[in-house]
């Protein structure tokens, strides 16, 4: 393994992603957690970029860091979520947790150590936006359309729920 720019970038991004994840768990204020989450999302987008999946990377930033986090922040701030989480306590619980984490680490290590990744066609990174589009509209048309119906149902459902709240608010 040689030290290349790609490797340095990967380690930097991976470090930020993991740090963001750890901070997300350890920080006590909810808004701080969301900001930590943003850093995780951004560095994951960077890792996609290293894998030359530029479209996925940009969409990751657009949807996750851009839209979803803002909606989360919006909800948290408007509901005046000032209280912070209590840090969990317990002696035996921590040891079982450690064992579980170690077990998970071993399982993941065994799982990926001898993983044989098939050699992918070398043209995958060229014009991958176009390739995604062609795949989506030729091979996967039906899942794509079903997904859009699902999203529409979610949208209508959200409107119905919000509307209900509004009427109750008027009555009280």
């Amino acid at each position: 393994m040689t030290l290349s720019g790609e490797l340095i970038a990967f380690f930097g991004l991976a470090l930020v992603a993991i740090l963001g994840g750890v901070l997300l768990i350890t920080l006590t204020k909810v808004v701080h957690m969301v900001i930590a989450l943003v850093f995780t999302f951004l560095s994951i987008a960077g890792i996609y970029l290293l894998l030359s999946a530029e479209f996925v990377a940009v969409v990751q930033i657009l949807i996750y860091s851009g839209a979803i986090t803002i909606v989360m922040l919006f909800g948290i701030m408007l509901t005046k979520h000032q209280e912070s989480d209590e840090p969990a306590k317990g002696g035996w619980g921590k040891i079982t947790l450690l064992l579980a984490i170690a077990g998970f680490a071993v399982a993941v290590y065994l799982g990926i150590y001898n993983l044989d990744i098939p050699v992918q066609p070398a043209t995958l990174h060229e014009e991958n936006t176009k390739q995604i589009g062609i795949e989506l509209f030729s091979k996967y048309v039906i899942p794509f359309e079903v997904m859009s119906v699902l999203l529409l149902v979610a949208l209508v459902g959200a409107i119905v729920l919000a509307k209900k709240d509004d009427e109750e608010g008027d009555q009280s």
Partner: protein
Amino acid sequence: MIKDLLHSTPSLLNFGIFFGLAVLLLFVVLGFVTYGILSERKIMGFMQLRVGPNQIGGKWGLLQTVADVLKLLIKEDTIPKKADKPLYILAPVIAFAPAFMVLAALPFTDAFQFADIGVGLLYYMAISGISTIGIVTAGWASNNKYSLIGGMRAAAQMISYEIPLVMSLVGIVLLTGSLNLNEIVAAQEKVWFIFLQPIAFIVFFIASVAELNRVPFDLPEAESELVAGYHVEYSGFRWAFFMLSEYVYMFAMATLTTVLFLGGWNSIPFLDFIPAAIWFGLKFSAVFYVLVWIRVTFPRIRADQLMEFGWKVLLPVALANIFLTALIKELINLF
């Protein structure tokens, strides 16, 4: 030049060159912001029958902004006692860094551009969305009701207007068949997209003014209602960072408008002896002037009107434009 650099083997020298170029661009942008602000104040002055800055740096007030920046630098840096300190410090950084990042993907001329990425258009939209997080964070971390309202308004407005902004550009993507900004410019060699996509241009321009948080869409910092909006508690250089990111976005948005609708560095027929950089500069300045003109002549709209306009007018118009473009494109292909 950049392309050769990107393909060469990585080394410390390479890093140095890239770093140097980035610093150079930063100074170019800072220079633009300095004189952009001055020209904005001058134009506003003339339009409102005032003289504008005319004391420091000669008759035209050429050093006015420099003096202002100096004042901001030596100003006391205050952090409110009840503010959320880490977020308060982090927020200007989150707001400014993306503003400078988007510049990397913008092609100024065929020679002067940094990264030629395949999804350049989406890259701009995605990265500029991150700034909103900085603004919301600033509003929340200041622990002040005005700044919180300002931050909320900024988030709501920027999310609502990002959708028509992106949707209006789908027509261009349909016509070009690419998200690459260079290919979009190349597709406008004969006819600029402002003539092929007039509806998209109007929607894009309105939405871009809203994205820039400028009058008539400056509700996040409406000074007559919210004192100063999300940056009401900020002072000195932290405040300057918010202003700077606002003007860098203005620079980036004027560039993007030029690239997408005014043919980038392409020249008008018979006038191609004028260099590409000058063409770009002319178109860019025209867009910038219109942005200032809009700021001077329009009143601010109300918050409820803002949302209604974005969702009920701009979005349907943008969607109809996509439909129309696809239809016409197919019809032309048919015959």
